[in-house]
């Protein structure tokens, strides 16, 4: 066990994958000498050279589009989109090429690529630097979407994503980059696409992923003081969803709250609420509730605390679930 920040853990995971597989290439803006604006690729160009860690021209469609061609040629390109709000120029490539190549070619082509995107808010940034675009990608068949919430998952999930034969959108919760945790380099915690129960409880289930998992855990601690026992599930994978783990929990607790930074309308929370209602209707003591961003553009960061899910908003939702 080694203590690492999330950023360093992902860096180590990338390094290990590059050592293990010469077909792994990194490309993105400022990922070479600078090591990326968040330093996630720090030192990799120095050790693996400019041919494997490529400072790309400034263009996201190009980054993802070139990754498509490299994957067709048998490489495993891992691209970095500098910030969530900059991924949209690559949206066509992701939807029209990355997601569809395997189906279009009737299985001949595999899109062995990973697109890393630092996502989410809470860092006091300017516009376009705090967004949560996961629902766009989860809605697209052919893509897989995952998000680690801990350094151990950061280390393992990036390695598993690189080994996956399908394209993976890898969402890194940027507000957690500098938080430390234990990394066990001896064995992966679980498969890439399974959810993890981070805290067991009996009265309500909080479901989240990425940056909001920690918020949910804090809410569970606060609720304990009020005599409520909360179970916290970290989805880890947004597409596919590990519905079974959530079903098992909700059948036990009877209450479900889903939290994410993305706007709730048309979001992952809506999908989970619908699926859980279908499967756990008779186990539910209250309607599934969602806590997340509002239907507004991501606000100026001076007021982001009022936009993001926080402990107060989660406890308020919990009260509503209990009062129903």
């Amino acid at each position, binding site marked *: 066990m080694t203590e690492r920040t999330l950023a360093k853990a992902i860096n180590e995971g990338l390094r290990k994958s590059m050592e293990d597989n010469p077909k792994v290439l990194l490309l993105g803006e400022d990922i070479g000498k600078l090591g990326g604006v968040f330093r996630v690729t720090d030192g990799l160009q120095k050790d693996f050279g400019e041919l494997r860690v490529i400072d790309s*021209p400034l*263009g996201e469609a190009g980054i993802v*589009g*070139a990754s498509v061609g490299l994957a*067709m040629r*048998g490489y495993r390109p891992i691209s970095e989109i500098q910030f969530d709000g900059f991924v949209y120029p690559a949206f*066509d490539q992701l939807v029209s090429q990355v997601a569809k190549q395997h189906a*279009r070619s009737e299985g*001949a082509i595999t899109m062995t690529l990973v697109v890393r995107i630092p996502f989410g808010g809470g860092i006091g940034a300017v516009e376009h630097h705090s967004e949560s675009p996961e629902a766009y990608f989860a809605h697209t068949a052919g893509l897989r979407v995952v998000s680690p919430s801990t350094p151990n998952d950061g280390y393992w999930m990036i390695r598993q994503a690189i080994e996956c034969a399908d394209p993976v959108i890898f969402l890194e919760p940027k507000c957690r980059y500098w938080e430390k945790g234990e990394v066990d380099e001896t064995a992966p915690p679980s498969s890439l696409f399974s959810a993890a129960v981070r805290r067991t409880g009996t009265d309500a289930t909080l479901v989240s992923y990425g940056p909001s998992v920690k918020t949910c855990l804090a809410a569970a601690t606060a609720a304990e003081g009020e005599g409520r026992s909360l179970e916290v599930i970290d989805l880890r994978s947004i597409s596919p969803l590990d519905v079974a783990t959530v079903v098992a929990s909700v059948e036990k607790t009877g209450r479900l709250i889903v939290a994410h930074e993305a706007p709730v309308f048309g979001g992952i929370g809506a999908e989970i609420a619908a699926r859980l209602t279908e499967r756990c209707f008779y186990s539910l003591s209250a309607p599934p509730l969602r806590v997340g961003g509002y239907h507004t553009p991501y606000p100026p960061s001076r007021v982001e605390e009022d936009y993001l899910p926080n402990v107060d908003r989660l406890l308020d939702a919990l009260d509503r679930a209990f009062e129903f």
Partner: protein
Amino acid sequence: MVRAGRGTREDAPDAQVDFVQLLSPTGERVEHKDYALEISADEAKGLYRDMVHVRRVDVEATSLQRQGQLALWAPLRGQEAAQIGAGRALEPDDFSFPGYREHGIAWCRGISPAQSARSFRQVTNGGWDPYEFNHAEPSIVIGNNAINAVGYAMGVQHDGAESAVMVCIGDGAMSQGDIAESFVWAAVFQAPVVFLLQNNHWAISEPTERQSRIPLYKRADGFGFPGVRVDGNDVFAMLAVTRAALARAREGSGPTLIEAFTYRMGAHTTSDDPTRYRILAEVEEWERKDPIDRLRTYLLATKAADQAWVESIDAEADVAARELRDAVLSMFGPSPISIFDHVYQEPHPLVDEERAEMVALIGAEEAGSLK
């Protein structure tokens, strides 16, 4: 708003600037200082055969669409020389990325007309195994595969392989941002890629003036690699220029933009009505530059071929057309259940669940899960 008249300015996109021509519209061989072409009679006859075949097959496919047997067809008539010349310049190890009109390039790569027709029959969204023919499936989203081609070329470069990549784009694609990005990437990495731009003058109903203020080949200059305009109805010029560009790519000298100056004689697709936007006189003017007529004239004049041979090629092409018709009429499927087959390579619980849902709803037999 200033409106550019068609070809009225010297530097208008369709201005008749010098281009590489090795066979004149009247079938005379002309020399070009930069592009010598030694071509045997057999090789020239092979190009003729290719062009006649793809034209005949194209006519058949258009009829099949009219008879309700294809959902759509994108006719290539007029562009046979551009496609056969460029297609025959490719070596087997080279990899090509087509648009949806590149039936001629597909033919050169060994893909049968029936395989080309599969997506137009809508039994698939693909058509062939790209790795079997070193030919990707078309991108219908205009221009977005150019950057895929550059990525592929970077992979070739990384492998240290001596092969090149060619991607087909058109005058409309030149307005897409992905093309600008692919030019930047190709230039800065000196990727072994050839951009084959078929300027067929019409992006559905929009003339090239709506895409550009300057001849399109000149755009390459600004990105830092050579651009060359070729008589796109001259199969010799297309072969020579594409060969040179591919050789340049293979030897590590980077990308080239080839503007094949040609004309889409037919409609954009079988859903289009070109009489709404272009005049007959323009079409007739291009008839006189027909790529097949000029090569036939040359072959007959040089006695490389006689009339009987020409007729035998027509008969052969009729057979190919018949084969296409038979193949299309016997193309069935896909089974409903097959839509779940290649969404992902690895198991996916949601796809498995929905597959089972379909079987439960319509029954295994109708879904096609019993094979």
